[in-house]
């Protein structure tokens, strides 16, 4: 039985290797440093891009795996080759869809995209494969590079007592990278209202979330692009990027139209004057009515 299993796995692996070796095409593929997996422990499956010497700038795909065989515990995209995610990798049932771009293009044999921490639920043979993959050339036209599927065939063994999790993780001692949020408006978005855009990276654990604070208000969890609540844009705006280990980096956009102290006092004086005039008018009207009656 064991011999048969080994022969089958070798046959499958050879088959795919032959196929991969026979062609020259870019691919997005999954790989793991640990084998075999054991039921009940956690393992890391990494997803890489091989551009096969092509200069590429956009990738898209769906990592597919048997949902009944694996639980997804985490997705790590820190230190990814993708600069801006259009669709950040997010776990679905048995699949993880993703898409993103690399401005300026990229050439590499084994460029890291993201990792998935999985916990096998049952023994057997399973495979992780990127489907619906698109790898586009850095040619100004978005020409599709020839893509070659390279599935990861995994053997999952029965649970072993004492087998721990193998979820190697890079130490994260740093806050996310410095960044500059930008306030903008465009007739094609948010009905021409002011919005805020921001993006940064964390080279170790990855970005967990962003928070935005307008003026003296509280931080609220936000995503870019963020529709500003204060459309006068006369208060400072702070954006806090928080990585998956809780380190935070704050970047502030200083209000270009911020009211000066003089303007604030002038506004207050105007309000007092208007109030005074209204009060006096009301008082006169009431007094005339009183005299009339």
């Amino acid at each position, binding site marked *: 039985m064991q011999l048969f299993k080994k022969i089958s796995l070798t046959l499958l692996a050879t088959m795919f290797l032959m196929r991969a070796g026979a062609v020259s095409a870019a691919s997005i593929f999954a790989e793991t440093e640990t084998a075999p997996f054991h039921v009940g422990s956690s393992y890391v499956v990494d997803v890489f891009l091989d551009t096969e010497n092509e200069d590429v700038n956009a990738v898209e795909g769906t990592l597919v795996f048997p949902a009944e065989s694996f639980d997804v515990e985490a997705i790590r995209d820190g230190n990814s080759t993708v600069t801006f995610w259009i669709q950040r990798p997010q776990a679905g049932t048995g699949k993880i869809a993703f898409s993103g*771009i690399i*401005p300026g293009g990229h050439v590499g044999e084994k460029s890291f995209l993201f990792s998935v921490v999985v916990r096998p639920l049952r023994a057997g043979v399973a495979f992780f494969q990127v489907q619906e993959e698109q790898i586009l050339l850095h040619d100004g036209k978005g020409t599709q590079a020839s893509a070659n599927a390279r599935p990861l065939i995994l053997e999952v063994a029965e649970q072993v007592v004492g087998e721990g999790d193998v979820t190697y993780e890079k130490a994260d001692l740093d806050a996310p990278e410095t960044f500059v949020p930008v306030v903008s408006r465009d*007739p094609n978005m948010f009905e021409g209202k002011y919005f805020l855009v921001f993006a940064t990276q964390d080279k170790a654990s990855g970005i967990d979330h962003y928070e935005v604070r307008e003026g003296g208000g509280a931080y609220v969890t936000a995503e870019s692009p963020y529709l500003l609540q204060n459309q006068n844009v006369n208060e400072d705006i702070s954006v806090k990027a928080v990585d998956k280990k809780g380190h935070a980096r704050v970047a502030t956009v200083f209000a270009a139209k911020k009211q000066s102290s003089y303007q604030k006092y002038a506004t207050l004086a105007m309000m007092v004057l208007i109030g005074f005039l209204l009060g006096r008018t009301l008082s006169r009207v009431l007094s005339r009515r009183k005299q009339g009656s």
Partner: protein
Amino acid sequence: MSRVLARFSALIFAVWLVVFPVVTSASTISARIRISVCGNTITEWDEECDVTDLNGQSCQSQGFGGGTLSCDPSCSFDTSLCTTSSGSVGGGATGGGGGGATTVPVVTQVTFSGRAYPLSKVVVLKDGQVAVSTIAGPDARFEVSLTGLATGNYAFGIYGEDATGLHSALFSFPVYITNGATTRVSGIFIAPTISADKSEVKRGDNIAIFGRTAPNSEVTLAVNSENELFYSVNADATGAYLYTLNTAVLEAGSHSTQAKSALEEEASPFGKTVGFVVGTKNVTALPDVVGVKGDVNGDGKVNLVDFSIVAYWYQRELSAEFRVVEKEQLNGDGKVNLVDFSIMAYHWSG
């Protein structure tokens, strides 16, 4: 179990047969850059030493009688503890360092150097966003540094802006930054800017192709035709080049051209593409507008703001107004998908 495995194997084999692979044979021309890391204990091409790695050298090999040779933070020899044959302490650091024992650099930084255009603006992007800019010297050489970096992979990009406001193609490369080390990226040669005086030229008439590059460099123009044609011209002392192409050798139809430069055994990659039509009349080219493609908000840049606007419409039905923008500045297929983002990534200016 074995039956399941056998069925699974058969299934995989069937899938393998059905999904027949496609072969590609495309190749790219890329400029050669050199990367060294001062602080990684490996002496590289532009270093005398690196922390504890003295590259097999000693005080004696440096002309001293004895003593202890060490390495300073800039990866140059420190001979301050070397002694002369008479026993006195030697001549200090050859590379400007001091101190006694081996010193480990503590600043994490990356330095970029190379050639752009004389007195041109050189912009460095870090992970797609503008990180720093500098002005190249009259000889087109530039050097610029970035600090405050973490350990990890960075995508750096560099482009030049010539005196007329034209941008070069973005030259990008990944660099792994090591904590506490100075990474030097040298030999960067920014591709020439390029422009043409006509958008359509009557077959047999001349079209002028011109731009900026490093002074006195040899510019190669590639004209994409049925057979690719190559022409060569030298830039002048100000870095300007001009080639007058007689279009009699080209077939009627659409063509495009790109330029690259070479000087002193260094070469740039091919830069941006300029298109023109060989037809029946002459049409003067409109002034080049930086980043027309992908610049959906019309501010002359292709950056995170444009990305965000396009991402807003990703896989949504486009409004009538944005449909016009998509047609003019993206691929014009009436929807926003990965191809549109790829076009933006190509024209990215940060």
